[in-house]
């Protein structure tokens, strides 16, 4: 039983940065911008969050720095693809290259000036440690996996709920979806297409950055370990957006299940299920492929994929 509880906790732990990345990318894609720079933005967020935490010891500043730095990167993407109409795929991939490089170069500089890889203080680590919700966390079984999580996990879930309400219930949310679905129609209806795209991409990028910070601050145990932190999670997030069919609430479950795939191999004994490690890691991508195909086959029914995804909008070619 204890093992099962730990397993779920581990899955949520692995799923949290994915949830940030997924939600961030989803915001961008909802406005029709397929930003393949998630991985890069997460790296940048990872460094910025760590650096701010190391220098100031403030959890708030750390998260703000991660958000801000990644949002700035997303702004480059927005400027190039929305204003200068550059190709989305190439721009996104470039952002990934750039972001990883920037994070590594700055990280190296931080280590050089510090004379070795820095560690976050114990005082800081406790600030972002799991939060036991009063009473609820004492509940048997569900107490630990549901009510004793990292504050950032709660924030991620809250953001998803907020996003779901925003897209479903508000007029502005409808406008954003219209931009992703059919920008010409949205434009004709008086929506400022560029503004919506900028806002969605930048906000989404910032959220991806927080996901990166989660990994450098928490997953890496307070030490700066550039090699292993983000390491492909950005790409899994891109996959997850498809997997949850562009639905913010489903993203919570999706991130949890991808977290399960990530941690499953440590918790399922070989005697129960013995499959090679590589297949566990392959699973998220295979499932995403399946979802991608199934949603395409059922294209006639509404699947959630924004109609104008990956396509830039030129008003004069309307």
């Amino acid at each position, binding site marked *: 039983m204890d093992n099962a509880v730990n397993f779920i906790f581990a899955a949520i732990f692995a799923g949290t940065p994915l949830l940030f990345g997924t939600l961030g990318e989803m915001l961008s894609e909802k406005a029709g911008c397929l930003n*393949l720079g998630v991985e890069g933005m997460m790296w940048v967020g990872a460094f910025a969050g760590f650096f701010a935490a190391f220098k100031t010891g403030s959890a708030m500043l750390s998260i703000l720095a991660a958000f801000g730095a990644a949002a700035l990167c997303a702004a480059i993407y927005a400027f190039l693809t929305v204003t*200068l109409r550059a190709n989305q795929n*190439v721009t996104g991939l470039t952002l990934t290259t750039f972001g990883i490089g920037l994070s*590594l*170069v700055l990280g190296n*500089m931080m280590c050089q000036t510090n004379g070795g890889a820095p560690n976050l203080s114990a005082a800081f680590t406790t600030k972002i440690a799991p939060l036991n919700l009063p009473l609820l966390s004492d509940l048997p079984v569900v107490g630990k996996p549901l009510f004793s999580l990292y504050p950032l996990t709660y924030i991620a879930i809250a953001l998803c709920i907020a996003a779901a309400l925003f897209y479903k219930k508000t007029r502005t949310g409808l406008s954003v979806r219209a931009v992703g679905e059919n920008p010409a129609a949205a434009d004709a209806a008086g929506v400022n297409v560029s503004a919506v795209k900028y806002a969605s991409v930048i906000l989404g990028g910032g959220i991806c950055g927080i996901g990166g910070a989660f990994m450098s601050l928490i997953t890496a145990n307070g030490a700066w370990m550039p090699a292993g932190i983000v390491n492909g999670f950005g790409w899994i997030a891109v996959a997850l957006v498809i997997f949850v069919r562009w639905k913010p609430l489903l993203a919570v479950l999706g991130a949890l299940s991808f977290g399960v795939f990530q941690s499953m191999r440590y918790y399922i004994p070989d005697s129960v299920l013995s499959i090679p490690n590589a297949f566990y890691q*392959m699973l998220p991508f295979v499932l995403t*492929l399946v979802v991608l195909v199934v949603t395409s086959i059922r294209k006639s029914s509404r699947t959630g994929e924004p109609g104008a995804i*990956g396509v830039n909008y030129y008003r004069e070619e309307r």
Partner: protein
Amino acid sequence: MKDIIHITKRPERSALSSLGLIAAALALAVVAGGVFIALMGANPFEVYATILKGAFVGSKRNPLSAIQSTVILFVPLLIVSLGLSLAFKMRFWNIGGEGQMIFGAIFATFFALNYSHLPHIVLVILMFIASIIGGGLWGLIPALFKVKWGVNETLFTLMMNYVALYTIEFLQAGPWQRTQGFASVGSFEANVRLAQVGGVHVGWILALLLTVLVAVYMSRAKQGYEIAVVGESQATARYAGMDVKKVVLRTMFISGAICGVAGMVQIAGTDYTLSTGLTGGVGFSGITVAWLAKLNPFAVAVIAALFSILEKGSKTIPVDVMSSEASRVLQGILLFVFLGAEFFRCYAIKLRLPPKKSASAAQEGEEQTDG
């Protein structure tokens, strides 16, 4: 306020004007990269000099060693970029160069491990064909889904990269594991390894040959023409009586096959084993190379060389000056600038002044590129 700036398509630039724009963008990228280096507390001139020296000037014992290492990076990048160019010409977003390269390598490895007793030339030809089939099939799968159900190829090929990557991990720790407890297929036997010409495996000759072949294929062959038409407009292609599905499938097979060959060349020429690091990310950087080169095979060769010089040279930057990963940042800056410059190649910005004055007071947008 909003409508003061008006963007219009501009007539195609003359060759000279295009060249000027490229030169301006290049200069801007170098300056912006220099500013970045300076911000990192290093001397931009020294760092740029180190990069150039590091890419070309070898050790005393072997003066060619640096160039050889640069060429070793250049070969797979060039081959993959060529392969991707074919798909991009068709407006098929093949982001799966990594996976196709890996599957080419996997298929080739099968022969490297099991048939290493065959005569060298026979074995190499077998591996070559195997890599074509492996990479080609891996490229064909997303194309099949695309033509059958319209599955988004960008996302599909992207996901397939990781399936391929973990297939290697599976093989390393499973059926092809050499030593118990150690996830590796082991080192290839000498008979498998490609011969060297000028201190670098023969792959470089193959890469240059492929450049010419792809150029001829794209500009002279009927199939190359079909690719271009399908890329321009599928409706036009259909109207002209082309079998669009067939063109898409065939081209993606070829695109994947070329990437697969890059995988075979890498494992038999450089790595001498099958490992997850075999691509070195060229499946991704090849996308940017192909794009920068505007899908012109000869330009692809030039840009791939430039990227390789940047990457190899950056490795020689002393770690206390700057991380060698600076090459990624510089590459990113270069691409950002060129992505932006592309806009000024195709569009003109006209300033519409308030209605009192005539609209003829419009101003060419060109001057703003320098800023």
